């Protein structure tokens, strides 16, 4: 039964129709700072660089800026960072009180490289950025920054004069002091350097919403007054920008002229709509720009509510555009202008100069870290539902997968498994023996995830609540008491996850002796970590709630990041640091990739939601978060059988593969739609399992070097303009191209196979196709169009079993797809699949597989590593081959043996029978 509380909340607080209630969420106009900032139009910047204050040390350049309108001074810090990055930091020179600077997101203090002064005059300074004759030009009046390479401007800051920094000030309360001028001297004194005697008046205007703001019935008290910041970036030569998730929108970002900017503010949006810039559950303030010449990135490190405006010069030339025309003698250069606006904090921006997509990924990874390497099983299939009702239900669903011979690794329990939504507990009637249940799953080498949300039921008989309260770990309201809001359990407190002591305590709650009924095959799901507050403004926390000294306003978008971090740390600690954790979270921020997986939240069983899952996960992959998925089948509403099948087929080729459904929807386990559909879903899931070795290898790379697992085509074909806005197909790594069927009733689709002179092989039929063409593919309900790039080698495990753990020791089949030059290469990565031993003790196998000169070889890529596998090479399938007279296997002991083979002349497929050699050793197969 649905809890009466839930019924009440859904009925009273949320819209009853199938669409987002836009009225619950702010537009830019309804967000006072966004409105104020957006009212500023491009023009001459009031800021001037005071060159006489310039200081250049080994690590940075500092320089004061002055706003000629109000004489408030800012401090600019410029860093040249290792790996071709520039960091620009702007804060008030002497703020009334410290402004928030985002902690814990950067993995370290980014190492710097010296900046050298090339020239200086009264108009500005020119600094060398080292490589490729890159220079950073600081212009004094008006202040602007330009990064140039040779004669080309790569990027300019404040070229449109939209640098706006609302300095902290003391409130001149007109109600108390109608004259309003008495305090002025001391206020200004606090803000101004000695020589700033002259006061400009513009700054003194008090606008609505500066000191208090009301949205619907919620009033934001704003004790610190206006504090927003803004900066513009111009990108000459750029027509394509990407990133800044999370939005249910196309991969290529749209211009925001005439509409709302893209909003970054973590919110629990009920029944979100696709194709709009509204904020969603997570926020990663990273944008990538791309042209055929160069890829760059802008990382705006700010955790407050943020809006991003995008415009392009087709709408009209800017001041900078005109200058550029002069420099380049052209009036046709495309340009994209971007403007970032945040409610508080400082300007701290990392400019990643690329120049290739791979470089940008490495650069961003060097700042915020890489994707957590998940346990192998987490890459397999997950079965979830709100809710599996009780232990018997779990056992029946588990058995259902075996009865229908469909593999799965994880079954999930949503909020109803708890004792009255008290996380870390079990409903005593429905789940009286959780360990028996978990043992039952363990016996089948399967796992479970239980939900642990960050809202804690206020209930004096609940241990978790009592401890948090007594330790003072709750977020406080503006009045200093524990902040309380409504969520699933009713009245709830919100632990202050920004507090490291709180996080340490939270992590300790996952110990096996603390979380009763938990076992090593039980992992965690953090939902509602925006945080969701049903009765809060925009269904989230009041901005004037306090996390220690900081307001939620300052760090709102970080809350979910910390929740997932504390949980992941808990899972690591409970195993004594041995086991890799798996934690799924809905809210996230830059750096969240280090702690687990994310999903696209509460989508709906609609074709558009299936389609949007591709750009949503692609956007996340571009900014570090590779472990992304959408609820297969759609969360709200009930999918048609066709939609469900298509969603399985799509999800099987997306990183996080989990079916999930709302409590109110009919059951939809894969076998409930007749034998034909069961077979279709089984086949999709089996394709996923067979490909797990490749998925695992891609995640190893994502973890190792920050390269996304799921990639837009332009990442691998950066000069192919045809790919720049494609988001109905994608690459996995660089070797598999997937164009899932996402159209209802599709009879065919057109896939674009990139790469002039390249070839692609249909992985199902082995049919060869040329690159650089639009290929029409007739499809049936069983079709999942996937192509392997000629020139690649992909390992699979053909023996699909009931869970990935069962396949651990199984042999590999290698699919070698030859390039037109009869070359191919790939890799094979193997470790124990679940511990940190790959990292701590170098216990892994990493081999390079390559085919050249009619010989296929396996060579060690990691000589320092050590691992033993039972897996062996079962079969080698060579696509695009010619028929050899014989095939000889050579092993390191000097032995040679002839391999039997089968050659399919119609498809040019050569199958080598049972090399039988261990997957961890050197070997060569020579074709003659």
């Amino acid at each position: 039964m649905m809890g009466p509380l839930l019924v009440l909340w859904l009925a009273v607080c949320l819209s009853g129709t199938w669409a987002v209630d836009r009225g619950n969420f702010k537009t830019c106009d309804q967000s006072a700072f966004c409105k104020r900032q957006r009212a500023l139009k491009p023009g001459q910047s009031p800021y001037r660089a005071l060159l006489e204050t310039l200081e250049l040390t080994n690590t940075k350049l500092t320089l004061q800026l002055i706003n000629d309108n109000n004489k408030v001074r800012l401090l600019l810090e410029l860093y040249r960072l290792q790996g071709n990055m520039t960091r620009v930091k702007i804060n008030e020179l002497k703020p009334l009180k410290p402004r928030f600077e985002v902690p814990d997101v950067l993995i370290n203090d980014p190492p710097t490289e010296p900046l050298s002064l090339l020239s200086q005059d009264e108009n500005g300074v020119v600094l060398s950025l080292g490589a490729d004759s890159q220079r950073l030009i600081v212009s004094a009046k008006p202040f602007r920054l330009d990064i140039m390479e040779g004669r080309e401007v790569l990027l300019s800051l404040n070229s449109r004069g939209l640098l706006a920094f609302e300095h902290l000030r003391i409130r001149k309360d007109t109600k108390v002091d109608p004259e309003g001028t008495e305090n002025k001297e001391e206020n200004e004194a606090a803000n101004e350097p000695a020589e700033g005697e002259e006061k400009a008046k513009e700054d003194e205007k008090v606008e609505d919403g500066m000191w208090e703001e009301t949205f619907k019935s919620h009033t934001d008290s704003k004790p610190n007054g206006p504090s927003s910041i803004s900066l513009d970036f111009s990108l000459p030569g750029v027509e394509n920008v990407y990133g800044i998730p999370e939005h249910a929108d196309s991969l290529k970002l749209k211009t925001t002229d005439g509409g709302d900017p893209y909003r970054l503010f973590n919110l629990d949006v009920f029944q979100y709509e696709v194709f709009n810039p509204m904020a969603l559950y997570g926020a990663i303030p990273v944008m990538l720009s791309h042209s055929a010449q160069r890829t760059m990135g802008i990382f705006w490190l700010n955790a407050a509510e943020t809006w991003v405006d995008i415009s392009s010069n087709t709408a009209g030339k800017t001041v900078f555009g005109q200058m550029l025309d002069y420099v380049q003698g052209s009036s046709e250069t495309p340009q994209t202008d971007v403007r970032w606006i945040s409610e508080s904090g400082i300007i701290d921006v990392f400019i990643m100069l690329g120049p290739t997509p791979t470089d940008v990924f490495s650069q961003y990874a060097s700042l915020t870290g890489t994707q957590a390497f998940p346990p192998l099983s987490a890459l397999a299939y997950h079965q979830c539902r709100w809710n599996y009702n009780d232990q018997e239900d779990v056992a029946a669903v588990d058995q259902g997968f075996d009865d229908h011979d469909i593999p799965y690794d994880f079954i999930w329990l949503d909020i109803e498994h708890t004792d009255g939504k008290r996380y870390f507990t079990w409903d005593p009637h429905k789940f009286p023996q959780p360990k028996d249940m978990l043992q039952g799953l363990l016996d089948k080498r399967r796992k479970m995830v239980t939900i642990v949300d960050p809202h804690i039921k206020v209930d004096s008989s609940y241990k978790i609540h009592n401890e948090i309260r007594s330790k003072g770990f709750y977020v406080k309201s503006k009045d200093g008491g524990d902040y309380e809001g409504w969520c699933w359990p009713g009245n709830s407190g919100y632990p202050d996850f920004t507090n490291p002591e709180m996080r340490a305590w939270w992590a300790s709650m996952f110990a096996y002796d603390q979380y009763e009924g938990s076992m090593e095959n039980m992992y965690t799901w953090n939902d509602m970590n925006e945080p969701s507050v049903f009765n809060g403004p925009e269904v989230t926390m009041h901005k004037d709630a306090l996390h220690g000294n900081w307001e939620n306003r300052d760090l709102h978008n970080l809350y979910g990041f910390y929740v997932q971090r504390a949980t992941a740390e808990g899972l690591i600690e409970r195993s004594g640091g041995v086991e890799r954790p798996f934690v799924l979270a809905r809210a996230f921020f830059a750096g969240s990739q280090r702690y687990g997986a994310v999903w696209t939240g509460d989508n709906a069983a609609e074709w558009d939601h299936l389609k949007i899952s591709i750009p949503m996960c692609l956007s996340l992959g571009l900014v570090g978060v590779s472990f992304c998925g959408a609820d297969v089948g759609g969360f709200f509403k009930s999918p048609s059988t066709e939609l469900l099948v298509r969603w399985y087929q799509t999800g099987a080729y997306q990183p996080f593969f989990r079916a999930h459904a709302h409590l109110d929807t009919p059951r939809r386990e894969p076998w409930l739609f007749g034998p034909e559909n069961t077979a279709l879903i089984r086949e999709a899931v089996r394709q996923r399992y067979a490909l797990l070795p490749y998925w695992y290898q891609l995640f190893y790379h994502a973890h190792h070097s920050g390269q996304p697992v799921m990639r837009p085509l332009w990442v691998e074909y950066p000069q192919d303009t045809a790919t720049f806005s494609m988001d109905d197909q994608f690459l996995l790594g660089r070797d598999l191209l997937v164009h899932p069927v996402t159209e209802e009733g599709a009879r065919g689709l057109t896939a674009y196979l990139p790469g002039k002179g390249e070839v692609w092989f249909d992985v199902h039929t082995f049919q060869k196709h040329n690159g650089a063409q639009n290929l029409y593919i007739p499809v049936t309900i069983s079709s999942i169009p996937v192509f392997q790039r000629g020139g690649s080698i992909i390992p699979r495990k053909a023996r699909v079993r009931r869970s990935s753990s069962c396949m651990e020791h199984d042999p590999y089949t290698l699919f070698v797809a030859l390039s037109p030059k009869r070359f191919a290469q790939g890799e094979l990565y193997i470790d124990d699949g679940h511990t940190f031993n790959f990292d701590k003790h170098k216990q892994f196998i990493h081999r390079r597989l390559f085919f050249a000169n009619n010989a296929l070889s396996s060579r060690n890529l990691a000589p320092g590593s050590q691992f033993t596998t039972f897996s062996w090479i079962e079969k080698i399938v060579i696509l695009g081959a010619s028929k050899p007279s014989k095939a000889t296997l050579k092993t390191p002991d000097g032995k040679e043996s002839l391999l039997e083979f089968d050659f399919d002349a119609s498809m040019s497929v050569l199958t080598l029978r049972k090399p039988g050699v261990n997957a961890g050793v050197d070997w060569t197969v020579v074709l003659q």
Partner: protein
Amino acid sequence: MSCALLLLLMSWALAMRTGAAVEIQRPRGVPLSSEQFYEENKPFTCLDGFSTISFDRVNDDYCDCRDGSDEPGTAACPNGSFHCTNAGFRPAFIPSSRINDGICDCCDTTDEYNSGATCQNTCREMGRKERESLQIMAEITKEGFMLKQQLIHEAKRGQEDKQGKLTELQGSKKDLEEKVEALRTVKETAEDPEKEAKERHLKAWGEQKELIRMEKDKTRMAEAFLELDDDADGYVSVAELQSHLELDPDSDGSLTETETQVRCLPSQENNFYHTSKLQGCSPFGEIRRFESKIGDLHDSCRSNEKVWAGGLWMTTGCMNLEKEIGFDFGPSAEFAYLYSQCYELSTSEYIYRLCPFNRVSQKPKFGGSETNLGLWGQWAGPEDSLYSVMKYDHGQGCWQGPNRSTTVKLTCGKETVVTSTSEPSRCEYLMEFTTPAVCQEPASLDEVLQGHTEL
């Protein structure tokens, strides 16, 4: 026995787990029935006849046959199956993918010969348990089947009784109708002829409209009847009607007995059989439409309360009898005894109530109103056992969801009891119900046991 011994001998030389392929030279995993196809040292032809391979390719841990038949004892073929003999229990086929996957699937442990899993041979124990439970089931079936014969006998008698009663009632009713007609004539002759003309006109116009609406209202009326029928006895009593104040025509907050009678009477103009098809009197559609007309007759009704009351009883009586006779109570009416009965099951939160051929409901244990989980729909078992599942639907609607419905699964038992309830999906309930009426004629116990062992 000899076969088990042979298998034992065949599997003595197990390859230890190594990094290389597992070599198994003997046809492990082959059922007795296919043994002749696997002749040692002779070329093996895949069972689909597609290709022929040398015998050392059988169970060599590489899939050569399209149909998987060359690897009956390894996991090499994606579509293969493995046969466990399970001496002491039942033989079984498992998918090849479960061979050496670390999970014990065959009770004789033969599926895990190279995985390191420590499996116990549980076949004898399982066989013993199954024989025990089969024995118990057989006894239950036997006794249940005897009870069922009794039920069939009773049902037959009951059916005859009811048919008789119905005929009798229909006769008395006809008498009453005549009386009513006579009264009406008296009344009508006393009335203004002008009014009569006007009425006739209105009536003709009204009837045409009603005809259309009546169809639509049918389902709702049936529900309404059951809603009024608070104690689910198949009759709407005056007391039950009085508990429904929404029917109060003069809005004085109470329903007098007279009012309830007026509301429940079929109109004179209305064909009796038509109303009986409606299975009861509806407060919402049917009755309201006759309100004005009956209102005209109100005075004469009032003066003849006793006649009307008799009519009411008889009408509903007829209707219920007809309804009951019309039900599908199974091939031999063995389910007839469930009619007009209700069975309850108490869980930690709710009391569930199944009134077969009527409705399923749920009432919170600690206060709160009853929820309708579905009205009798139809028998819904699979083709070969239609009478093993009952479906109740059109229950109370769910928020943003379907109307509640309940599936009742019937199993053979000596007692008639609701044994469990659950809600596998939102607003879709499942009830387990035992009754002798589904017990099948038992096979002899020996037969049952023989069918389940292979020694």
